[in-house]
């Protein structure tokens, strides 16, 4: 085994290779690696944040849904109540109207009857006068005897 200049040649080429590697190979690769790992870390963090946001949004959506359900139930209840109330009111109204109508009819009937009676009475008195005139053959002072006739008519 001879030690010779090869040793120096090897050392020189080694130095050149290391220099080249240090200048042109290592920095770009390691920079890319570091940048990529940073990118991945950022991505992971973003994913975490997004899932947290999603959770939050889900919660919010649930809350809104719950609220609106409650609201809807309340509205329905109110509507029901209002409907019942309206029905009751309508019923009362109808009953009151019926009563009033009946009363009015009754009153009219009574009035009619009264008027008929009156008319009848008048006619009876006239008839009575006419009859009496005929019977007596003389004219009776209508005024003087109307009292008697009226009394008679009332007795009818």
């Amino acid at each position, binding site marked *: *085994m*001879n*030690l*010779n*200049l*090869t*040793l*120096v*040649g*090897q*050392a020189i*080429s*080694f*130095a050149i*290779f*290391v220099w*080249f*590697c*240090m200048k*042109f*190979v*290592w*920095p*770009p*690769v*390691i*920079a*890319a*690696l570091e*940048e*990529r790992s940073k*990118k991945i870390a950022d991505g992971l963090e973003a994913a975490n944040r997004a899932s947290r946001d999603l959770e939050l949004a889900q919660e919010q959506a649930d809350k809104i849904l719950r609220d609106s359900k409650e609201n809807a139930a309340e509205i329905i209840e109110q509507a029901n109540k209002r409907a019942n109330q309206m029905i009751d009111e309508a019923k009362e109204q109808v009953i009151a109207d019926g009563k009033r109508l009946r009363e009015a009819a009754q009153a009219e009937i009574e009035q009619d009857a009264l008027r008929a009676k009156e008319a009848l009475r008048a006619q009876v008195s006239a008839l009575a006068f006419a009859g009496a005139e005929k019977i007596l053959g003389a004219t009776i002072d209508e005024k003087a005897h109307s009292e008697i006739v009226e009394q008679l008519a009332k007795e009818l």
Partner: protein
Amino acid sequence: MGIESPSAASYIKHHLQNLTFGQHPDGTWGFAHSAKEAAEMGFWAIHVDTLAVSVALGLLFLWLFRIAAKKASTDTPTGLQNFVELMVEFVDGSVKETFHGKSKVIAPLALTIFVWVFLLNLMDLVPVDFLPAVAQFIGVNVFGADPHHVYFKFVPTTDLNATLGMSLSVFVLIVFYSIKVKGISGFVGELTLQPFGKWMIPFNFLLEGVGLLAKPVSLALRLFGNLYAGELIFILIALLPWGLQWALSVPWAIFHILVIVLQAFIFMMLTIVYLSMAHEDH
């Protein structure tokens, strides 16, 4: 070819000899035609095969990773980019686990070491005769060389020069950062004033000096030894009759997949540890 045959030894030797270029003792320059000639060239020679393969694989590494680095974005990665990011992330994690200071150099250094050493080791899994045969073919037909003189040892990490070249670079960085962080006095103090205090300075220096020098030496020898031994086993398996080779080479290769990754990882890890020790103040 049986192990007992006389050519077995020369086969092994041929496989373990680097293609060496340097100055012959007579003053002419050229390739060594034998191990003896290569040894005679002394220090001022180079192993062409080791350098060529390691530079080619280093360029392959940088080319692949540069493509991915250019396309690097925060989009979903695909194919090559996935692989590159995986490697970068793995190395970055290893560095951050061990090294707590701030340094722009250590992580890319660790990545280069890991991938480059892995690729160099990976050559171990290429069949032992494949690339030498290609080299021999080119050597004979293009350069008109004697086929016996075309050596080609294609696993660079089985060449101590390659591993020592890297580990000495790491050693230089250790010393550099030690001085940068602790100052010269701090570094010298670390070498001389512990573990036994100022009355034992020579002894401390001896102890710490050996400890310091052991780092690059052990780093280089561990990688070299593992791969050299593994390659030697492959060469020995290649001496068996061809019908039997698979029975041994396949399990050994599968086992070696683990070894080459592990050795690349150990080299990287120890580099990080040594450099983080250099950054620490006692």
